[in-house]
């Protein structure tokens, strides 16, 4: 699966090429459609899904520093270091006339220790591998392409301070998770799906505060990194997301974000050695306990069952964003992503760097 890593390098080249092409537009000689007229920091940053927003939530702002006078864009790289995973997101977004945004992100999630264990276990349990679990112990990475579009429909987040009317945008993502076998193992229903959202953003200058509320219509498990839908729940549902950014200075913001996640695979096991859902293993061990077969054997089975039960939690982060110039910004955050599939307490540092043209 070295191809995963090579793949990332290839995507990086594509994203950089994209960057270079925007840079070409930005050369003064072609001062027609290039524009960087937004006020510093008001374009937000690129989220792990690639759209402009906070860190995990898309906002109603359009990517890039353009106003209605032109085109601008940005590229980002984000790295989140969690106890059992690391998340890499590399992407580009382009804003047209502060009205339409097109974005792309490539998310890469090397899965680390958890899946090594599951992979070794499934390989052992299965003996002869009946079904590819999609886990190559010590070398598994989840890969997802995310294509996004966002249209600002009404309102002005910055200057209509005399009304409560916010800026409103409609957007969507099409996400393609490339780990088909692994998604089967994780009992996800689909590996490709779309998400739609409505985002509303308002800046309250008297309070130095930006508030964003987004409602996402989605069936994603862990943003789609572990697929879409579950064994019983496949329908998309509305999930709220909220961001606050307190503006400490014209180039510094601190804030917090919350994003509700679904429960499609929550409480479910994983499919090992064919089609056995490990939560079934749980009922069996439970039954064994009930008829008095406890002791070390029962405990072992129970522990195994706990270990192999998937959980999903709402996501939460607190962030610090610094915009030294319109061309460069940094985000440092503490992310609490809770339970991610088989591993609880996934909290860790999140760093993001973004360049605009």
């Amino acid at each position, binding site marked *: 699966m070295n191809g995963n890593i090579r793949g990332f390098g290839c995507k990086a080249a594509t994203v950089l090429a994209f960057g270079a092409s925007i840079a070409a537009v930005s050369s003064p000689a072609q001062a027609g459609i290039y524009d960087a007229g937004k006020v510093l920091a008001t374009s937000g940053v690129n989220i792990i899904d690639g759209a402009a927003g906070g860190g995990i939530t898309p906002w109603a702002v359009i990517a890039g520093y353009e106003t*209605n*006078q032109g085109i601008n864009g940005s590229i980002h790289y984000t790295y989140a270091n969690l106890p059992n995973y690391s998340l890499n997101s590399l992407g580009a977004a382009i804003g047209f006339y502060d009205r339409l945004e097109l974005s792309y992100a490539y998310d890469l999630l090397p899965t680390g220790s958890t899946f090594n264990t599951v992979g070794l276990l499934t390989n052992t349990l299965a003996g002869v591998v009946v079904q590819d679990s999609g886990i190559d112990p010590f070398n598994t990475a989840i890969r997802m392409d995310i294509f996004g579009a966002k249209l600002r429909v009404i309102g002005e987040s910055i*200057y*209509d301070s*005399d009304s409560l009317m916010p800026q409103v945008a409609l957007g969507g993502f099409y996400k393609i998770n490339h780990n088909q076998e692994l998604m089967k193992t994780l009992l996800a229903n689909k590996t490709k799906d779309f998400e739609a959202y409505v985002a509303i953003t308002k800046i*309250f*200058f*008297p*309070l130095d505060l930006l508030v964003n509320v987004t409602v996402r219509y989605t069936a994603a498990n862990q943003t789609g990194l572990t697929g879409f839908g579950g064994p019983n729940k496949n329908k998309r549902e509305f999930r709220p997301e909220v961001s606050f950014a307190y503006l400490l200075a*014209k180039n510094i913001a601190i804030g917090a974000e919350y994003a509700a996640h679904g429960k499609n695979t929550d409480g479910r096991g994983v499919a090992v050695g064919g089609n056995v859902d490990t939560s079934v293993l749980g009922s069996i061990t439970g039954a064994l306990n009930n008829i008095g077969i406890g002791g070390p054997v029962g405990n072992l089975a129970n522990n195994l069952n706990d270990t192999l039960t998937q959980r999903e939690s709402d996501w939460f982060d607190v962030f610090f964003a610094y915009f030294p110039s319109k061309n460069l910004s940094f985000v440092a955050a503490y992310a609490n992503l809770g339970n991610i599939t088989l591993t609880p307490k996934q909290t860790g540092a999140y760093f993001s760097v973004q360049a605009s043209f």
Partner: protein
Amino acid sequence: MKSYNKLLAAGAMSVLSMSAFAGSETPEGKVQATYPPISSDAYEKFGGEYGVARWTEALFKYIMADNRINHIFAAHGKIDRQIALNKQLVSVMLGAPGVEYQGASMSAAHEEMKITLTQFNAVVEDAYLACEDVRTPYHTCNQLIAALAPFKRSIVTR
């Protein structure tokens, strides 16, 4: 559910108030009504008459140094009048007692220049630089930005 209704009502009201403003004049004559209101001691925090005067001078220093927009101001050649009138306007907007704005309305003053949002934002960036110049804290500066922000609808016509 009740609070949800309230929110909806607030939303509807703000849409109405927006359409009431659309195309009509923003109030140069009195303190701008913002949501939430700007702090009541904004004028004092801004340094009163002396503070507003120094800030306005700093603003025009930055505007005249700003290649994105200085040519527009230079072409009209009324910088002294603009500085004087902006001192009045800023004072009124920050709630200074007994000050009157004697200039033209914002739409009358800017209409035929066909100002873009990019140019308007350049003035906003210069306004923040002017605040830093006279050591007016960001929070206080934002009270002024909030108060002047709705003029964007009268000033930006492109």
